[in-house]
């Protein structure tokens, strides 16, 4: 088990470097510069800029400098936002995305798991049909449709909640918008997983041994039934924490997802690389956590 974790942790380093190198290459291939705009700069100014940011050096030197910075976990200064370091931008804006992400994750888990479990226990009941229809709706209505509709109803008609921007009440709509899709997915996965487990031999054995239904469900069935859910929610949590571009745009949330997209359009290389490095490492760590948690949920899984 320990060697498995160490091996996986060590693997993260080369993986992250490959991701960063590829991203760097892609940025370099893209035409245009952080300073290119409708109004062209005089050649002398362009030269000064290139000198100031080391863009006049050969590419391998630039690559080396970039890698050296990243190894030291210092991503340098943003090119677009004069005088702001990438590290401080990450520190400042990740909490926004993480707050919304965690709240949405929690909401999705609570709603999704309970709806899925109840639906599986009362298969083919009204509740089952109703919750699964809702789940279907949640899956098929994308957030850029759901978000504006929620904003219209709760902000522009009822005046209950602000239509956008960061505030305590302003969190409600983006969290619901974000959670809807995940809750629907989790509900369907839970229901399917539970139905399968409830029909399996070891549950029948447990029941045959005379265990009461509560124990069967909570001690035996849920652990097995949730494996598909766990393998979905691990990466889902990473994705939610990373910030979601659409929801952040619609609700004007100053999160990382929005900034990430802008950094690509701005050709703000250090910022893009910093966010990519940060997110890719986070996603790899979450996947590791998911893999480890399988062992606790299902005694059949072994780490070799």
């Amino acid at each position, binding site marked *: 088990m320990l060697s498995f974790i160490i091996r996986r942790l060590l693997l993260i380093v080369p993986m992250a470097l490959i991701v960063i190198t590829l991203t760097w290459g892609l940025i370099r291939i*893209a*035409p*245009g*510069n952080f*300073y*290119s*705009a*409708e*109004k*062209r*700069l*005089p*050649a*002398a*100014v362009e030269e*000064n*800029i290139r000198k*100031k940011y080391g863009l006049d050096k050969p590419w391998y030197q630039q690559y080396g400098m970039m890698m050296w910075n990243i190894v030291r976990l210092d991503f340098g200064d943003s090119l*677009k*936002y*004069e*005088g*702001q370091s990438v590290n401080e*931008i990450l520190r*400042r*804006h990740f909490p926004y995305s993480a707050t919304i992400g965690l709240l949405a994750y929690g909401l999705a888990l609570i709603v999704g798991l309970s709806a899925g479990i109840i639906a599986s226990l009362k298969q083919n009941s009204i509740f089952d049909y109703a919750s699964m229809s809702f789940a279907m709706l949640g899956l098929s209505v*994308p957030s*850029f*449709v759901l978000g*504006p*509709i929620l*904003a*219209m109803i709760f*902000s*522009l008609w009822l*005046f209950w909640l*602000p*239509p*956008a*921007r*960061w505030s305590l009440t302003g969190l409600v709509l983006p969290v619901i918008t974000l959670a809807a899709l995940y809750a629907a997915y989790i509900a369907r996965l839970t229901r399917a997983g539970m139905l399968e487990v409830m029909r399996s031999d070891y549950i029948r054995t447990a029941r045959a041994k005379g265990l009461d239904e509560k124990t069967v469900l909570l001690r035996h069935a849920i652990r097995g039934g949730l494996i598909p859910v766990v393998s979905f929610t691990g990466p889902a949590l990473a994705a939610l924490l990373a910030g979601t571009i659409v929801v952040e*745009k*619609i*609700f*004007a949330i*100053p999160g990382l997802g*929005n*900034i990430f997209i*802008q950094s690509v*359009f701005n*050709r703000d290389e250090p910022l893009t690389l910093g966010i990519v490095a940060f997110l890719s490492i986070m996603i790899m760590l979450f996947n590791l956590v998911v893999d480890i948690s399988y062992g606790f949920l299902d005694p059949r899984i072994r780490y070799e």
Partner: protein
Amino acid sequence: MKLISLRSARIAVYLVSLFLVGCSVSGESKYFGSSKPHGDNVLRYISGSEPATLDPHVSGGQPEARIYASLYEGLVEVHPKTLQPIPALAKSWEVSPKVDEFIFHLRNNGKFSDGTPITARDFEYSFRRAFDPELTSQTVQLGYFVKYAEAYNGNQLFVERDGKFVTENDVADEAVPAETRPPFGPETEFHKYIQSPTRLTLPEAPLKRAQAIEGNPKLKAIFAVRPSDLKDALSFIRKIRTATDPLSKNLAATIPPDALSCLENCSDAAKQSLAEALNKALDSGSFFAQDWFASLSLPKDAKALGDAIVAENKKRADANNAIDLEIAKLSDPAKIAEQEKSKKKPLGKFFYANRFLLEQMFPDELSPVSLVPIEPKDLGVEAIDDNTFRITLRQSAPFFLGLLTHQLFRVVPQQAIEKYGKHWTRPENIVTSGPFKLKEYHPYDRLVVERDPNYWDAANVHLDGIAFFAVEEQATTLNLYKSGAVDAIQNHAVPAPWIEKIAAYNDEYLNFPESATAYYSFNVRKPPFDNPKLRRAFSLGIDRVALAKFRKITKPLYSITPSGIFPEYDKAMAKVGEEIRKERGIPTEDWDKYRRQFDPAAARKILGELGFPVQENGGNFECPSFPTDRIALTFNTTESNRQIAEFIQAQWRQNLGITVPLKNQEFKTFLADRNAMRYDGLAQSLWSGDYMDPYTFLSLQYGEVNDGGAGFHDPRFDKMLDDANYELDPQKRFEMMARAEYYLLEQLPSIPLTINATNWLKKPWIKGFYPNPGTLFPWKFVYIERDPAKWDTDVEGIMDRDDPQVVEQLKQLESTVGGQ
């Protein structure tokens, strides 16, 4: 998991927004959404994208400009309606007769937000800083009119020879006779210097310097080796006679022996003959091109120059090879000759490069021509005393005063910048000079400013503060506006599908012409659009009135300069147009048609004359011989750009029978291609004026390198504009510029399409806030009206109505300007 194409996403957003509008407009309310002002005296404004920096000298963006206008002040500020300069930190000013010098009289009560007084020295510092090459300001070229600003910003060097600076006159083909200028302000040492004949400036990079010198014989003579340059002739002679490196050997072989004859105590005559022989050797060919050059061990700078020459020659050879390949495909001898002409010769003889090499190789023997870096103190700005500031330009620039309202010329705090370096704009360090100071800043969310009690005119700042929100999404922007969370939104914020509904709120919707134009530029360097007649045919094939109707908010554009923005210039255009019409004897009717640039029949006729006959086929036109595979209409990807492109494509298909292929590109990719002229046919362009003078539009096609995007350059047009700018009578100047514009309209490097509209909303209780052509606001005029009876109504007429409070405030401000 989610793989929905951007296009379908966009369509969905439109459908949803249409649905929203449909639902929401059904109410009876006179107002769009909330009609309750906030209790506090703070304006809430959506300013668009997140500001790149709070340093006004660095960023040239418009969202930034609006924030800077609250935080920083300059010598002059914009008039809330006309954008003409009004007094700010300068209470009055004088303009020299040639309009190339300005003296500003500063207020003695100007203060930074930390209480430090603002004096002329702060302006001197601010101007010098703006041009600092290391600041890398992205808007600095606006200030290049200041004498030596461009040279300083471009790291150029003065040339000193025999203790005197070489002037531009010294190397000009025709020397401009010295003129006696009437005195303008106090005569100081600095003023004598800045008014002395303009010094020559040369590029810092040795290769560029060498190219500049090679192209001008008079300049080359200045760089010739003089006997006085030979610090130690004897040592030089000894070295090249005895050294074994190939350069010395080569020199020893090329220089006649009698020039190398002096063996001790060289006489002046011997030095003279050595200098002459050296000049001959230097001019005989490039040392850098010799076989032995690679074997030299070179000092760093000489090696860099050698590498640069090799790289440049390789670049030229590659370009020539590409041309050869192109020629191989051609058969028409005229076209082949044209291609041959565009080939570039390799860098050949290089007198200065050779001399530079010698200077580097023999540092103790041959002294270099003294090249003096331009320093901040050399710029044409001078604090005569604490309250008097003088600016000297390199040329007459009647529009310069209007330019001074730009953020590049606003005053910044030397004390904070020197203390905190690049971190001076952080909330804990920032010191500002405007009516407001920074209160809180949450990037990507909001930036809040509050009235600065230290501001000299704080009593006349009506708002307690302004909250700028960084929101870009149009639907989100409108939701925030409708819910009452914000009082006003940035320009261009209302999306096309909403406009018709929102325009009905005529107490709030502001639709006025902007000082910005949309046009398609032709690639005039590539056939088929290298022919102005064909360009004209394509322009005549577009119904601009229909386009403007289709776009709902724009006005048709028939010229280079947008009409309705510069009223005096519009009059000049009409007057000159009438003159031209009479000169050519064109009937009024035809002239109108000519000016309106829509005449499909004439367009088809031109196409026929050019060998692309248009046939009529059952009401449809066809032009099969036109090479549509060689052209495209390139635009950067946005929904509105696509709609315009498709509309115009349809117009040409309908009117000319030509279907131009469309090509869209991501914005920065598009810019890179367009600026390098890597497009076929046409490319979309948008230009917003930098200052309130038609020159900001006409200069788009001025000079060899310009922002017009067409690759157009016409010395005749340049001369017409130059002449106009030397004209001191404003009316006459406009007429001369109008002539230049009519000339440009004949050349037609671009198709004018539409004039931008302001297209934004404000709540009726926000007053003193006008939809001016630049969407730039002098915030101290803005106030919140609590009495609903006095709210703005029917804002269509807002620009023609006078607000007594604003008029009074303006009168008070302008009272200090005497006799202007």
